[in-house]
């Protein structure tokens, strides 16, 4: 009935069927046999860092207040006087939505109400309902959400690290904005962002679960048709124009520190890197997950020594975060002795850059990764996250697994050499006392 591009992973026992509807919306159905839960996700390639663009209705370039993509997420999940979370919940279905730097996703999870949930999700996204009153009401709720993050030391230390690394890039701004910036949001601005970024070509629909593929796609298409008069009539597609400058590696400030009423201080080291795209992003992610195990996990001498000294009780995390718009490595940890740990980490990174790779260890990590890949197949959330990443970075869905298997010692070596103190910023949250 539909033409599918089929992508498959033997390791995960998982197949994803991809088809593009006549209006340009691409649908992904990831089949997970035997699972009861079914998930549906409707998303757009629009997030907090896209705040400078051409308004699709007027053709004029505009800059919008910080936090508007997240605000739009809240408001779109509401219909006349009724919250969408509530509408799903009345059907016994759980739902939620989230906004990231570069995408926004609305989703449901259900066992018995799959078809009705698709109907509801499409309706919500295709029928925006913003009023002066409901925008004002949301400013109070989001204000409390922002205050909650302000008291969360993990959140503060992380966003401060981004602010220290980036000079102007919008990754510096809080995804939810601030109480001040969201006070400038009104219903017209919300409609502008909606019309510009919630077009079928900029969106994706993902289903994960043990479902009938044809029936699922048909149901989605039938629903979309209800809201698009010109469905399938080959209207000209307006191109989205957004302005987002990729930054050079120079950092904004070397160190940033904040005192909070907490017990355990936290630290983040951020290494700013040159931006790469497509499979290179996946390669860097795979390399960093190997580095994390090889040099920071509980089997390392580093962990053992820091643990014995009472510096840490959990491994320091070492993560790659990258997209076509930014690229960096973040190390983070909680510790009683934040300055000592900082010194130890910096020394340690110098050391591992200059020592040979332990081949036995490298092989051991690869063995562990094989097991982890299989275990990850039991988690439906990992399935949809992989699809979203493939959409955003324009790669095949299961490329990450092949890439992880292909990582060599040389890759590790070369990547470690990218960690340059000159392009590194430090964020610390201390305890007030």
């Amino acid at each position, binding site marked *: 009935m539909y033409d599918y591009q089929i992508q498959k992973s033997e*390791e995960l*026992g998982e197949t994803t069927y991809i088809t593009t509807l006549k209006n340009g919306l691409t649908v992904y159905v990831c089949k997970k*046999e*035997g*699972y*009861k*839960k079914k998930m549906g996700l409707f998303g757009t390639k629009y997030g907090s860092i896209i705040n400078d663009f051409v308004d699709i209705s007027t053709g004029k370039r505009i800059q919008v207040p910080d936090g508007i993509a997240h605000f739009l997420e809240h408001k779109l999940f509401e219909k006349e006087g009724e*919250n969408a*979370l*509530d509408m*799903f*919940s*009345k*059907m*016994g*279905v*759980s739902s939620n939505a989230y906004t990231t730097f570069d995408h926004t996703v609305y989703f449901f*999870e*259900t*066992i018995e109400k799959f078809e009705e949930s698709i109907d509801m999700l499409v309706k919500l996204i295709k029928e925006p309902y913003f009023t002066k009153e409901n925008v004002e*009401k*949301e400013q109070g*709720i*989001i204000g*409390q*959400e922002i*205050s*909650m993050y*302000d*008291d*969360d*030391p993990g959140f503060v230390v992380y966003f401060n690290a981004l602010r220290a690394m980036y000079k102007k890039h919008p990754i510096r701004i809080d995804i939810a904005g601030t109480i001040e910036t969201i006070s400038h949001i009104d219903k017209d601005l919300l409609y502008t962002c909606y019309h510009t970024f919630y077009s079928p070509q900029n969106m994706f629909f993902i289903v994960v679960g043990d479902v009938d593929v044809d029936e699922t796609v048909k149901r989605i298409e039938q629903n979309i048709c209800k809201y698009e008069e010109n469905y399938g009539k080959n209207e000209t597609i307006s191109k989205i124009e957004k302005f987002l400058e990729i930054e050079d590696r120079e950092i904004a400030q070397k160190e940033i520190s904040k005192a*909070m*009423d*907490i*017990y*355990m201080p936290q630290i983040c080291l951020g290494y700013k890197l040159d931006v790469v795209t497509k499979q290179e992003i996946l390669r860097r992610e795979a390399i960093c997950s190997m580095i994390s*195990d090889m040099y920071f*996990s*509980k*089997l390392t001498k580093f*962990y*053992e020594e820091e*643990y*014995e000294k*009472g510096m840490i*009780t959990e491994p320091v995390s070492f993560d790659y975060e990258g997209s076509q718009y930014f690229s960096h490595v973040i190390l983070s940890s*909680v510790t009683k002795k934040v300055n000592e740990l900082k010194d130890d980490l910096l020394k340690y990174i110098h050391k591992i850059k200059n020592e040979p790779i332990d081949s036995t260890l490298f092989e*051991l*990590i690869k*063995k*562990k*990764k*094989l*097991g982890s890949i*299989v*275990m990850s*197949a*039991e988690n439906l959330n990992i399935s949809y996250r992989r699809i979203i990443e493939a959409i955003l970075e324009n790669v095949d869905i299961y490329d990450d697994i092949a890439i992880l298997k292909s990582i060599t010692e040389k890759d590790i070596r070369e990547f470690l050499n990218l960690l340059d103190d000159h392009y590194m910023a430090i964020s610390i949250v201390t305890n*007030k006392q």
Partner: protein
Amino acid sequence: MLNIYKINDSKFKSIYLSCNFIMPVNRNQNSENALLGSVLGKACKQYPTQAEIEKYLYGLYGTDFNVNIEKLGDLYNIEFKVQFVHKDFLPDKQDVSDKVIEFLYQVIYDPYLVNGVFDSTIVEREKKVILNKIMERKDDKLRYSVQRMEQLLCPNEAFGMDLYGEEEIINAITPERLYQRYLEVIQGSCVTFLLSGNLEKYEDLEDKLKKKFEPKLENHLKLDEMIYDDVKREMKNKIEEEKEIQDTVQSVLSIGAVIENYQVQDYYALNVYNTILGGTPSSKLFQNVREKESLAYTVRSRYYRFKPILIIFSGIMQENYEKAKDLILEQMQDMKKGNISHIEFSSAKESLVADLLEWNDSKIALAKMQLSNVLAFQSEEVTLDQMIEQIKKVTLEDVIRVANKVQVEKVFLLGGNENV
């Protein structure tokens, strides 16, 4: 005899195996258990350091191992758990199960000892780890508030003691005393195994466990012998307010209630009650406190499976304290009077049923359900399907009846020192 609960579903690709030491505790034992759990997971005779334990597990294709501590009501559980990949999904169909069972046995029954007791260096090191965990709690304001409320509601019960114990008691524990405690735990607990996941082609796994562990399991407590009667509660019939100052942007309001004259059969109706009150976005709290009045982003109520208490928590601005408190108490009063719409009632039941059905997709949830049903219902016969049936059978009258058993006793505000 080996006490084991087993779940087999071939859609999974791995196997979860856990060995639970469940026991009642007093104040001292509570702290000792926390330290013991921390020490045992870090070393055993054959693998005397964390690094060696981890290396061994990495070689078993990333077998996951943890010592987890938890409270099941007033009972303490020290759980040794592993998760490993099914042989069908490993290169050359390698089977790691024998090695995993042997490893689990080693970490439990062959600990790393120096002069017949635990190594004092490790004990002292782990004391610091535990003490940090206790202090660190305040860094998560919402969780901290809920935990303080648990303590306020159950001051004289094991449930109300901090899972990680008390600083003074922990500091005083010697390696000798800890080893003594170790012997008490392995000889005096109810030992329960959970085995769940894809057990196809692993028909002999239970026998292997029996052969390995049974010699160690004589004369142990039985789960049904340990089921406690909850302390007779004296109803306070008044609300006490407490406040703790922290320098924060947001304040956390929590409200604690106890269930008067709780009966096992109230369990399902109380779950429906809790869901209507503050369990979902359709709930009275979400609708009124968040959606109508914009007072909060987070507002929820939680009913405790093993304790007849209920806690409501919400992140608010301090200046809205009285308003939010009154609004929440009003919702509870409303439910006592039976002001519950048909849609509130039916959607709460549907949500609960959906949550239960979802356990089918988690091998760990399925296994844990069997264990907790023994404790909560004093029966190991209760299946997931029966639980779902019982939820469906709850009537509006049942909900109103239990609503009138819910008595608010404490209000706790964790807040900034500004504005008030």
